């Protein structure tokens, strides 16, 4: 196993920074914008998604030779939806406050492009261990992005940080970190939908700047055959004509 170690760590680390699903590949925008009014919600959503991703990647990867190619999409959807239902039960049972605050977005993990994308692009082509590592990396990258988003919006929008984290980890007398000055004059706009769009735009701009790379004008193309966006893609028309 020793010689296998390096590539596996690479599988994990690539998802966190270099191919961060939210900030670099721009997948899974809906939950990123919707639940990040608090940093703790971001962590909860991120971990729930990581769990679903891990489960679905392992199962899909294990069944990749059994699932016929033609029915793979419905098969993937059923596997993913089952894990989402499972997570829903677990959260409802063990962390009811988080279950309440995530609400409908918990169900909508089913249609999160990250999970489906990893199933299609990675798990259906790689072995179980590599798929599991990929899922952990991508999930942690997603969690990190959500945590950053949630922190920025919570600090500016309500003047405190990590409210609700106590419920997440089971500490009853948790006190959120209060930010002086902003606590008295919070910019409410930031915890409203408009602030979500704005914050995400600024964070992506910052990632662009730090990575010092050309902005992602076009999402990188991996061929039209497996591409969920092939329907609306302009390049396909170019190729066909």
């Amino acid at each position: 196993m020793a010689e296998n170690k390096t590539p596996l760590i690479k599988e994990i680390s690539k998802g966190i920074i270099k191919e961060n699903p939210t900030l670099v590949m721009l997948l899974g925008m809906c939950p990123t914008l919707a639940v990040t009014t608090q940093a703790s919600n971001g962590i909860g959503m991120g971990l729930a998604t990581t769990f679903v991703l891990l489960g679905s990647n392992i199962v899909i990867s294990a069944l990749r030779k059994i699932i016929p190619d033609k029915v793979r999409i419905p098969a993937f959807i059923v596997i993913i939806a089952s894990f989402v239902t499972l997570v829903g039960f677990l959260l409802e049972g063990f962390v009811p406050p988080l279950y309440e605050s995530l609400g409908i977005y918990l169900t909508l993990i089913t249609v999160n492009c990250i999970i489906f994308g990893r199933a299609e692009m990675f798990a259906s082509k790689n072995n179980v261990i590599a798929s599991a590592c990929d899922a952990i990396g991508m999930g942690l990258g997603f969690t990190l992005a959500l945590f950053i988003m949630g922190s920025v919006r919570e600090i500016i929008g309500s003047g405190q940080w990590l409210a609700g984290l106590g419920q997440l980890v089971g500490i009853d007398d948790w006190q959120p970190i209060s930010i002086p000055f902003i606590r008295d004059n919070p910019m409410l706009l930031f915890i409203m939908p408009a602030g979500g769009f704005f914050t995400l735009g600024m964070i992506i701009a910052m990632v662009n700047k730090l990575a010092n790379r050309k902005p992602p004008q076009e999402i990188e193309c991996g061929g039209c055959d497996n591409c969920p966006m092939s329907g609306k893609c302009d390049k396909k028309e170019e190729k066909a004509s």
Partner: protein
Amino acid sequence: MKTLGVILLSAMLTDNFVLSKFMGICPFLGVSKKLDSASGMGIAVTFVMICATIVTYPIHHGILVPNGLEYFDTVVFILVIALFVQLVEIALKKMLPPLYKSLGVYLPLITTNCAVLGVTVLNIDNGYGFIQSIVNALGGGLGFMLALVIFSGVRKKLEYADIPETFNGVPATLAAASIVSVSFMGFSGLFS
């Protein structure tokens, strides 16, 4: 019980799926570059939303609830939507080729549009009746289309703007979406 008009307008304006519930962001950012593709996607989504509601409502209340299987909602609904999108695609291809030609490319994308799954789940969560559910789906779809069409106009302007390189592309689009979302905040409290 809310009246149908209030459900329709609040699904369209105050609780706009894209701009205040963040559902269907991917097509909102992806397909809103041109006006005709924005309206095409909007019509296709509205259509599938209504059809999915018509199918999932009886399934939930007729099959799952009597058998105590409500927790299968997610699995069943997403399968129904995926199947339905396929059926609609095949049917349109055979029966209405011109409509298929204009909508066809957007249909496969709709399966993974969270607004469609969202509206079916919300109908159940809110305890709407059959007619109310359909009106809610109609309002949600129209609101989605409205947001896409308005935003396609904004993006046309954005293309001619001189934006710093770091902000070019997605960041500028998101900042513009934020401003459009602020304008929709003006509707809040209209129907309460």
